[in-house]
């Protein structure tokens, strides 16, 4: 440990406060007892649909397409999840099969 315990504590506190600030800010800016602008309500309604795609990209952000294994395990597993989910529409099934396929690919096939 390079820092003293007090410094560690301060750093953790600062990170915690900044994190919770990003979570709380919308609720502080648009409190319940005041009318939220229509534009913000509109964003609140459509953002979830845009965020889910962003989260998928975010999860896959460190996958390299130009070095081995070229994102193949991720591509195969995502397609598996999608195909299964479109056909069977069973969230737990899609996730467990997709994850098992992915683990098999990274642990055995592309080791």
């Amino acid at each position, binding site marked *: 440990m390079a820092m003293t315990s007090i410094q560690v504590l301060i750093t953790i506190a600062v990170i915690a406060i*900044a*994190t919770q600030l*990003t979570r709380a800010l919308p609720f502080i800016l648009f409190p319940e007892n005041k009318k939220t602008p229509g534009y913000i309500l509109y964003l609140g309604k459509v953002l*979830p649909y845009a965020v889910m795609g962003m989260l998928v*990209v*975010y999860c896959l952000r460190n996958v390299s397409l130009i070095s081995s294994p070229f994102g193949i395990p991720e591509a195969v597993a995502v397609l598996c999840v999608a195909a299964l*989910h479109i056909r069977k529409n069973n969230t737990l099934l899609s996730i467990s099969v997709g*994850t098992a396929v992915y683990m098999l690919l990274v642990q055995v096939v592309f080791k």
Partner: protein
Amino acid sequence: MRKHWYAIKAAFPYTIPVMAGYLFLGMVFGIMLVSKGFHPLWAVLMSVFIYAGSMQFLSVNLLTSAFNPLSAFLITLVVNARHLFYGISMLKKFNGTGARKPYLIIGLTDETYSILCSTDAPEGVDSVSFMFFITLLNQVYWVSASLAGSLIGSVLAFDASGIDFAMTALFVTIFINQWRTQREHLPAVTGIVVPALCLLIFGPDKFIIPSMVLIVLVLTVFRKTIERRA
């Protein structure tokens, strides 16, 4: 009491994919932190009060470099800026949740958000309790896993690498569910195309903020079209 039990039973199935991901990532976090010479209690403290996966991994770096609270503060704001979107889309749903509202806000991780924004409580289950227990269960998984990881250190019994893909898979299934229920696909398409382009241009560490700005821009420009078709 019985009411709570119903809500927990209703909430639990939705948290199973998150449990798989959190147990693994939480353990990895705990292992990482103690490997840098920190006491396991630090891991618990961080998972309780920071409770943000990618930020906690980054914190391990910050805690092992020189003491600089200001830069830690700014880095955290940038890394977690995506939370702003979650708050904005939960303004309505968290309205009137009373005493449990602060915790719903504090516990709003990527994964909890993805469940809460796409799921309504089953019939007969109190929706505030339902949201509260989804949030709480997820954090329980995360905190216990960080503690377990920090206690067992680097002695992992089996190779679990790749299990964190459960998280990606969860987001893919929710994406498809949302696609089914929406007639207007422009927001969903924007959410894939814009971040993908930004990732190519700005790289994995810097693409989220430009993505967020552009997504809001596109949704603002096409507001009339989207509202008409939705």
